[in-house]
């Protein structure tokens, strides 16, 4: 069944897009990540212009994170105060990101900027996860590892504007969560991803947040950064395709439910190993495309920019 996408101005197979939404939703339900890092390359692969893939993906993530937060909220796993501080940074980061996006688009460098940031972030995070999870699996076989220190004091914790976050039992500089939020916001705008795969480790390792609150709180602020990104992308770059977002959404919501159920049959380390393998594979594929000679050295851009 073909469906015409009004903003992308192309016709796609609705079942294919629904299936992609399902697959990414399944993985995000299984591993607890947004899955944007997979969806944007998939959309580009089926011919959606990168700029529209990114803008639309931000819109779809609003819905995904709302439904995710609801589950965490009911269990009381959201630190609203910390989330709001992250958000303050996040909105600034998003605005800066959308602005950079527009400049790069006019310069004709947006495609390579998107690909490069994917290769960099997916490569680094995926590689680190791959090492960590393989070690954890090896350690499982030889369970002698000793527990590390609960809290390490580094220079980041000496920053000014200290704030007390009762819910997370933290007394830290407000600049830290705000800074993490700002980086997350920029990722939303430039890469079209929620940034959960970057926010979650940052909140665990830099803020020393209780692990139970991390997913809910990061999703909470992702709602707002993705909403801001959608709004700004629609207003400045006109790259949000509501039709495409709707299709992805339907597939994603259903896929996530199956993924959540499948995850209960999977061990933590095994799941992380599987996820990091996928992340690294995507990074390698994108890097390969960047360095191998393209079929046609010339590309067209409509309009003046």
């Amino acid at each position, binding site marked *: 069944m*073909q*469906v*015409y*996408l*009004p*903003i992308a*101005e*192309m*016709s796609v197979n609705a079942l294919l897009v629904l299936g992609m939404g399902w697959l990414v939703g399944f993985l995000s339900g299984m591993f607890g990540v947004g899955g944007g890092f997979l969806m944007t390359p998939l959309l580009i692969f089926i011919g959606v212009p990168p700029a529209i893939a990114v803008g639309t993906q931000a*819109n*779809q993530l*609003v*819905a*995904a*994170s*709302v*439904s*995710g*937060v*609801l*589950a965490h909220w*009911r269990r009381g796993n959201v630190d609203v105060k910390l989330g709001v501080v992250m958000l303050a940074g996040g909105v600034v980061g998003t605005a800066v990101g959308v602005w950079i996006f527009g400049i790069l688009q006019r310069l*004709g*460098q947006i*495609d*390579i900027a998107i690909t*490069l940031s994917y290769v960099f972030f997916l490569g680094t995070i995926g590689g680190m996860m791959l090492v960590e999870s393989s070690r954890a699996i090896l350690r499982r076989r030889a369970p002698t590892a000793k527990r590390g220190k609960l809290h390490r004091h580094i220079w980041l914790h000496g920053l000014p504007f200290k704030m007390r976050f009762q819910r997370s039992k933290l007394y830290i500089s407000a600049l830290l969560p705000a800074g993490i939020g700002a980086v997350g916001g920029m990722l939303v705008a430039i890469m079209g991803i929620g940034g959960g795969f970057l926010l979650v480790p940052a909140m665990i390792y830099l803020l020393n947040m209780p692990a139970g609150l991390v997913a809910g709180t990061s999703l909470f602020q992702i*709602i707002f950064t993705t*909403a801001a990104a*959608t*709004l*700004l*992308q*629609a*207003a*400045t770059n*006109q790259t*949000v395709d*509501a*039709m495409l*977002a*709707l299709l992805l*959404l339907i597939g994603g*919501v259903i896929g996530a*439910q199956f993924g959540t159920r499948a995850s209960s049959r999977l061990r933590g380390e095994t799941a992380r190993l599987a996820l990091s393998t996928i992340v690294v594979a995507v990074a390698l594929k994108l890097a390969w495309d*960047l*360095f*191998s*000679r*393209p079929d*046609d*050295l*010339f*590309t*067209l*851009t*409509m*309009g*003046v*920019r």
Partner: protein
Amino acid sequence: MMAAWTKCRPTRRLAVQGAAALAGLLLGGTVAATVWAQQLVADLSSHLIAITTGFTGTEVVLFGTTDGPGDVAIVVTGPRAPVTVRRKQRVAGMWMNTDSVRFDQVPSFYTVAVSRPLDQLVGRPVLERQQLGLPQLQLPVDATLPPEELAAYRSALIRNKQRQGLYAISMGQVAFLGERLFRTNIYFPANVPTGLYNVEALLIRDGDVVSAQTTPLVVSKIGFSAEVSDFARNRPVIYGVAAVLGAIAAGWAAGAAFRRV
């Protein structure tokens, strides 16, 4: 048979005049009334291509008559707009866009159909004057470039347009039914750009164009997809707000629906 058809037409024309529902017939009547004055008359099976949500491309039939033996060429040109062509070069091992050239007046769509190969019909000056065929298409640029550079960009532009299916790779065929009646099918792919198209029919006789007729064709988004794209273009901020609110509602509904599962 042709003669009988044209003769009975004017009376019929009077009968249907004013009936808006029979606009197609009325058009036929106009054709008949003016056929004596013009050497070439052509019309399209439809003057509007509607891009709906289920649009997968369409075909429009062009038909017409000539006042005697001759050859016919049809040129379909989409609305002209600027296009930037960018060239990738290897920078630190990566392929990235380095140079670009802006073409100011690029037809978004271009296809030609002929009844006989063009080189058998007319000489180069006529081809160039009429911009008949891709090599003759005028594509002005905003910069001064060495000729070989310009040629590389120009052929890249045409090649990319052909890959998108918007410029025809080979010429279409105009078929003659008898000596005077001709028709051809013009195919428009799913990614056809919207706007006002020009369909030009040329009558070629003795190595020159002796008569020409231009028919407009509108390609427009209709229905839901039109509303979405108009909304996004004319009220981008409100569109963004609506997209966000819609997503929040959808996420909420999904979260609530699967709570019980």
